[in-house]
């Protein structure tokens, strides 16, 4: 298990290699990368605020939950904070397992939980001004389904 909360950008290829190596006898690595999207409102930049004393422990708890539910050999979460421009990477989730089903499902679980349980708050800068992003019902629903289908 490994979590980094940082301002700096990350190297996706290097992160995948590192997870595969840490996992040992790995048959599958699944990866998700999240980006700042320009979108319908013309987002030019985004500020990610976070709760420093809580962030790493919250992410580690989410990661630990994934390891309890799926036979993962290794995993990695990288989450950036600070000022990011449209097109920049925000978050990476990588999971390594013997077979692909666990790797895919655990990666999706980690992202669904990160969307609702990681102490970050996004403030978008658009052509119309600044705006705090609101939680989405679809994100809450996505996280909830993992509670109902607990393995």
């Amino acid at each position, binding site marked *: 298990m490994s979590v980094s909360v940082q301002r700096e950008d990350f190297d996706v290829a290097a992160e995948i290699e590192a997870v595969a190596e840490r996992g040992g006898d790995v048959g599958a690595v699944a990866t998700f990368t999240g980006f700042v999207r320009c979108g319908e409102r013309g987002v030019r930049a985004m500020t990610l*605020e976070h*709760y420093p004393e809580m962030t790493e422990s919250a992410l580690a708890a989410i990661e630990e939950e994934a390891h309890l539910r799926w036979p993962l050999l290794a995993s990695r979460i990288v989450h950036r904070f600070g000022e990011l421009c449209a097109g920049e990477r925000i*978050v990476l989730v990588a999971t390594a397992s013997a077979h692909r089903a666990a790797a895919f499902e655990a990666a999706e679980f980690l992202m669904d939980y990160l*969307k*609702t349980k990681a102490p970050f*708050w*996004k403030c978008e800068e658009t052509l119309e001004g600044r705006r*705090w992003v609101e*939680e989405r019902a679809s994100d809450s629903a996505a996280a909830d389904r993992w509670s109902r289908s607990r393995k």
Partner: protein
Amino acid sequence: MGGEPLRLKYFAWVREQLGVGGEEVRPPESVKTIADLIAWLCERDERYRTVLCDSPDVRFAVDQEMAEDREHSVEGAREVAFFPPMTGG
């Protein structure tokens, strides 16, 4: 609540609307839950009312762990944080 002051932290629009990122307070012994704490803060200063009392969307963490609701205990707590629903990931 003992000798140590209680640290309060505010994030995102909660921080912007209160005009401060955090503060230290010394609530009386009668403050036992988040609801009690909010009521006490509102009594001290009206600006807490709009942001914490009247806003259903504010969430809480006590000593860096998420609180389920306003009935969560703050007895013995060192830090309570107030923030909007999280939008990470």
